[in-house]
């Protein structure tokens, strides 16, 4: 596995290598070299199976992290390729020419995160949501609870009382407060 990554280093600029397990590595690449690197990984280094591609929203850094998980049938090992892209004008090179099913993920990412993949087939067709007018729902600044309460008529729940306070109020008003003990892992 290390040998393969060393061969990849000669082609592109590998920013970071993390070994999670002997058969699971994560590497970080530059965005503009991604398609070349994936093509090299697929055609020369035999990482033929694209397990998935997904995005992670880093709202505080104003970045999306895209993860491409590829698998090598001979090595029996997974390699995750991470790429950081800008969150505001989020757009990425399409890899639908490398894998026939990649357009499906790209269509999902366009809908759920708003990441554009120019040239990808059927990318702007609705995939999961129908008649959706809000911002892409998987973005972290979309508040799903507020939207659900606003739209879907929540049924009011029962009233609940904190047992400790209730007992104090109802039965033992003069009982002293116990000092709060902080747990280590809190």
């Amino acid at each position, binding site marked *: 596995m290390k040998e393969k990554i060393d061969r990849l280093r000669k082609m592109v600029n590998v920013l970071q290598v993390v070994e999670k397990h002997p058969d699971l590595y994560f590497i970080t690449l530059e965005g503009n070299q991604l398609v070349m690197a994936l093509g090299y990984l697929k055609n020369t280094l035999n990482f033929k199976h694209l397990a998935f591609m997904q995005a992670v929203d880093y709202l505080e850094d104003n970045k999306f992290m895209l993860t491409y998980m590829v698998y090598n049938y001979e090595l029996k090992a997974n390699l995750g390729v991470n790429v950081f892209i800008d969150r505001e004008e989020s757009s990425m090179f399409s890899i639908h020419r490398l894998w026939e099913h990649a357009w499906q993920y790209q269509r999902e990412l366009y809908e759920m995160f708003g990441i554009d993949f120019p040239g990808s087939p059927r990318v702007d067709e609705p995939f*999961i*949501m*129908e*008649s*959706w*007018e*809000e911002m892409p*729902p998987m973005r972290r600044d*979309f508040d*799903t*609870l507020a*939207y*659900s309460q606003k*739209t*879907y*008529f*929540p*049924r009011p*729940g029962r009233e609940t009382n904190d047992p400790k306070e209730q007992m104090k109020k109802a039965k033992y008003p003069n009982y002293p407060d116990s000092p709060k003990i902080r747990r280590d892992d809190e």
Partner: protein
Amino acid sequence: MKEKDIKIIEKEMKLANEGLPEMERDLFADDRPSRIEPLNKYLEQFLNWARARSLWILAYGTGCGAIELRPLMTARFDAFRYGIAGRPTPRQANVFIIGGYASLKTIKRIVRSYEQMQGPKYVIALGSCTINGGMYYDSYNTINRIDYYIPVDIYVTGCMPRPESLIAGFNGLKKKIQAGQCDGMNKYADNFDWYKANQKQIIKDWNMPDYNW
């Protein structure tokens, strides 16, 4: 009929199907659903007795509750002995089982399938998620209360409800039908505007007829 009368009738007739393209508007019913009043007492009792004994459910697995419908139909639980059978099309069915959470895309199909069913028709809502959202109470894509969109006759709680509780739900429905208390269809006819407003509030691209006969 005189020409004058035809004109008056044409004026009064309003095509409500606004979501459809103009060509297709005439193809669908523009009439509101109407109440079905019970017949004379003894005939109605007989009809209710008969209705309670032939519950044909629509085979539309709208959510994960559908997985318990298949064991219900096999040798172990054998719902056929209660007169319960699955039908593939809404025209032949009179019980609609909402199998759990209904997502935004599904609720549109649920409404349409429900309206296409012939009356008298009944709805059983399965699972906690049809009552108050259940564990998807904060999801952006699942509705919280099914009774805001179609009338529900009986709820079966649980996540997921066991086949036994489903059978108990069917028996409850039978009792209700036999007592003549299942008026979900009349409720839908009476509060048609309210139901439609609720449905149109969440289904933003309303491109189907307002009422499907």
